[in-house]
């Protein structure tokens, strides 16, 4: 079972490659079925890994048995396994959605989807900053392909912006890695956390510059304020299954921010501790504001959901900026909820758009929705969850985040913005729902029925907030334990670098 940690990488990699070989590549149906089996297997493995990590042990896999700061390690602690599970659930549902009638997917779609999952899983599991870069590139190049699927003007334009921005981001990432390696002499996250504690004060400004450059890169991935303009266009232009899967992409950036600025530049980093906080706090808050304005201005449903993602990213970043255990736990709970619900809403918006014919998902009166009652109730549930109204998990998540702010200064900034953005979401989603379902300009020409498998995928994702609120107790405990493990920097350093000290003793 020791090799279990590596399976979430091996399975999508080999599976994606196999799909390009003859028995599978000829038939789209066979590819899809195989991908579904792979995805279910990955989900099962993530569940096992979560179970292992919940016992409080940090699983460390040294590739080729080279010990930690010299070799490459994969680290499966509570945080990475939790996000691994989240990815696999989201990926399973997006994959399920491709079983419906959609013709624009070529034979490279499923392999690219698997490579995307490989990149995301790798980014969560790696214990090394350079490998984080490599896995970022894997998930990016897969996402470039996925984003462009189907072609068309809007996709090309959104894709061009997305690709150029991310290439510039990669260059900054490498500069930051170069600075960190040049000053600290290592790129292993645990080792960096150790070295930064005994840093020569003369080199501190350089390391600080390197760290903050990392914040730019992760901010670009997470869609933090000045770097979020690519997101609505890119997400609104991609196919629904891809857009749903992309809901995890911003969370990769948030994960990287959490990991780097809690472990490396965390409590124990001396003069460099909490260097990200002063930047994250105002930028996160402004991201909420800009996202809310975007929500108000959205002309179609998918752009609206993309802007809701920006709002959730802003709230998460602002709460993470507090850099306290309770705040991190609250952010983690809300992260699970917001990823799943936004993925579900992207799928739902495609179901709605297809039944409305030519108007698509534009928020103008058009032909009525064929299955108005069914899709309307789904939209209602999704809207309640994403706005953060009781009884669903969005409400709990927002309450947890609001109560994470302790001082008056924190409250007076965080509360109005989070609550105000919820109000904006409430207004816009009510307006959107009334336009879509209650204000038809004509009867649907024929009664169109949603494809049952696609409907299943959507319902699965939309029912997750319900599950998260029913099992709120265990999940919040899990989030609290995860945050505690993440903030315990010495514990992480100890368990990742443990093999080395052991080696020294043997000598």
């Amino acid at each position, binding site marked *: 079972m020791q090799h279990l940690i590596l399976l979430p990488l091996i399975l999508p990699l080999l599976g994606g490659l196999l799909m390009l070989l003859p028995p599978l590549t000829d038939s789209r149906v066979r590819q899809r079925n195989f991908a579904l089996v792979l995805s279910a297997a990955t989900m099962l493995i993530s569940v096992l890994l979560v179970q292992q990590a919940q016992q409080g042990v940090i699983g460390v896999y040294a590739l080729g048995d080279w010990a930690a700061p010299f070799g490459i390690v994969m680290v499966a602690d509570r945080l990475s396994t939790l996000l691994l599970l989240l990815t696999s659930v989201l990926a399973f549902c997006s994959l399920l959605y491709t079983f419906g009638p959609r013709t624009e997917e070529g034979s490279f779609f499923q392999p690219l989807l698997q490579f995307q999952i490989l990149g995301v899983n790798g980014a969560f599991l790696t214990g090394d900053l*350079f490998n984080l870069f*490599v896995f970022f*590139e894997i998930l990016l*190049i897969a996402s*470039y392909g996925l984003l*462009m699927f189907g*072609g*068309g*003007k809007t996709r*090309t*334009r959104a*894709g*061009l*912006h997305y*690709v*150029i921005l991310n*290439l*510039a981001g*990669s*260059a900054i990432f*490498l*500069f930051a*890695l*170069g*600075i960190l*390696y*040049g000053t600290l002499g290592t790129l292993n996250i645990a080792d960096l956390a150790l070295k930064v504690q005994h840093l020569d004060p003369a080199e501190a400004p350089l390391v600080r510059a390197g760290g903050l450059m990392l914040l730019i890169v992760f901010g670009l991935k997470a869609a933090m304020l000045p770097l979020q303009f690519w997101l609505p266009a890119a997400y609104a232009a991609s196919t629904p299954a891809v857009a749903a899967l992309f809901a995890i992409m911003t969370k990769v950036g948030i994960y990287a921010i959490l990991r780097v600025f809690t472990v490396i530049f965390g409590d124990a980093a001396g003069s460099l501790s909490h260097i990200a906080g002063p930047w994250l706090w105002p930028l996160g808050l402004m991201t909420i504001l800009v996202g809310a304005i975007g929500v108000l201005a959205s002309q179609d449903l998918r752009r609206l959901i993309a802007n809701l993602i920006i709002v959730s990213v802003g709230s998460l970043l602002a709460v993470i900026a507090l850099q306290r255990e309770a705040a991190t736990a609250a952010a983690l709970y809300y992260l699970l909820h917001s990823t799943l619900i936004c993925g579900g809403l992207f799928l739902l918006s495609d179901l709605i758009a297809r039944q409305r014919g030519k108007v698509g998902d534009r928020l103008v009166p058009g032909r009525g929705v064929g299955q108005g009652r069914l899709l309307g109730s789904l939209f209602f549930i999704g809207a309640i969850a994403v706005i953060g109204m009781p009884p669903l998990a969005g409400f709990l998540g927002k309450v947890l985040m609001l109560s994470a702010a302790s001082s008056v200064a924190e409250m007076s900034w965080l509360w109005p913005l989070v609550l105000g953005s919820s109000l904006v979401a409430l207004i816009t989603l009510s307006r959107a729902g009334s336009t879509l379902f209650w204000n038809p300009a004509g009867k649907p020409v024929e009664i169109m029925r949603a494809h049952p498998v696609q409907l299943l995928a959507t319902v699965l994702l939309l029912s997750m907030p319900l599950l998260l609120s029913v099992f709120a107790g265990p999940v919040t405990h899990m989030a609290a334990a995860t945050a505690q493990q993440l903030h315990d920097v010495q514990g992480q350093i100890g368990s990742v670098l443990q093999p080395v000290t052991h080696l020294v003793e043997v000598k």
Partner: protein
Amino acid sequence: MEALYAVCVGVLTAAGVFLLLRGRTFPVVVGLTLLSYGVNLFLFATGRLNNSAAAVLGAGSDHADPLPQALVLTAIVIGFAMTAFVVILAMRARGDLGNDHVDGRVPELVLDSEERN
């Protein structure tokens, strides 16, 4: 040697950033390429510059750091693939959108000044 090297990295990066901020796709792609050259040189220098240091296998008191070389190699490979992709994408955008502006349409101000010339 350090000063010359630093100036090289600086000039490459500055030129890369300047071109990256242009409006047409071709200068942007060239800018990305220059930027990645600057990055690669910079990464290479993180192992410190020294003359006549042995590679790890040789006998000598002075060793060159092998890790930056591995990092640079990875970065070059990835950068090359990404450049190839962005070139194809830029050509596709030229075909799909009918012009080579990064926004997919040439701003009217630019059009005016081009007509006047």
